[in-house]
């Protein structure tokens, strides 16, 4: 009697069938913890002079590879002039439990920058309606 041949997984996908994966999987040794690439934050710049906008993250072993991946994740459609990547660990941010430090006492609305934002929105709109695609730096307050 020959030894029984172990049944392998048959899939609709011929590539999976070809792998000859046994139906009864052997026990896995879990990977050691922290065996992960670090993450990079990706910023997308649509046109020269425009502000890069944060669009997401990628896993990568180094900045060059982060650019390689960012291109396919975030620049496949639409217009792209450049991409920036920054190691997530290099970004300093407030902790969520400190969010209350941004609360403002209502009596000081004269100090809020809303007006500037509106002015910049109007400027952008004007530039657009004049058919210019170049985005000059907004007038700083």
């Amino acid at each position: 009697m020959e030894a029984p041949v172990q049944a392998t997984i048959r899939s609709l996908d011929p590539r999976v069938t070809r792998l000859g994966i046994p139906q009864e999987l052997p026990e896995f040794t879990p990977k050691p913890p922290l065996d992960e690439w670090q993450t990079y934050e990706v910023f997308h710049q649509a046109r020269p002079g425009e502000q890069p906008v944060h669009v997401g993250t990628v896993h990568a072993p180094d900045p060059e590879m982060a650019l390689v991946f960012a291109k396919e994740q975030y620049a496949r459609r639409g217009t792209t002039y450049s991409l920036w990547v920054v190691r997530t660990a290099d970004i300093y941010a407030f902790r969520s439990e400190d969010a209350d430090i941004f609360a403002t006492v209502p009596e000081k609305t004269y100090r809020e920058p809303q007006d500037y934002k509106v002015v910049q929105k109007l400027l952008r709109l004007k530039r657009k309606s004049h058919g210019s695609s170049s985005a000059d730096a907004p007038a700083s307050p």
Partner: protein
Amino acid sequence: MVPPLQMPQLPPEALPALKDLLYRMADDALIIGHRHSEWTGLGPILEEDIAFSSIAQDKIGHAYALYRLLHELGEPEPDHAAFMRDAPQFRCCHLVEYPNGGYDFSLMRHLLFDLAEQWRYHLLERSSYEPLAQLAHKVRGEIKYHVFHATQWVVHLGAQGTEESHERMQRALLQALPLALGIFEPSEYEELLAGHAIFPGERVLQSHWWETLLPILERAQLQVPPLETLTPAYGGRRGQHTEYLQPLLDEMTEVFRSDPTAQW
């Protein structure tokens, strides 16, 4: 069947030479695109899976564009050119036919192939055959990214990875190099193509390729055997293929051949 276009700049004796060049390029792109696509869903990490799948799609796009040029010259329409021929009618090199193996071989093949593609299209940007020159200009950015992707990986695994990754890239290089030399298998049309300024020829292409390849492999800290010790895997350009091509074609064409007249 579309009749051949009137091409005042293309003398009739150059037509078979041009078609042969286009079939070689189109079949290379189609088959390596299919091989790359076999990694879809199986890539090492999500980001890379997406990037490599996207490169595979680009290759199929290049093949489609080239089959369209052939169709304009009187050859069958793209779907039929891609899906209705068998191995002996294909003009791809052996390098693209080989099974994916591990990611080491797939990446090394990707580098060796795309560096040659980059040079080939660069030279073709000045081709006297205008439609091909235009296509070469159009694909420049995509292929630049393909080379960028391949170089990053090969250098990373060769020089910045582990001992195992270095060894595996070295093995992959030794396996893939003779196959890659098959890209440049000369045809009977070399002089004709160069004479009509359609394409300067495989020999010119190979020397550009080799000069650019060496510094990349040096950055990857890989040992390169002397060129003269390698036996190029020729035959593909004459329709003599490895045992791997026909099974690939059977699988790739199964759906199309089940009803070639179906409207998709």
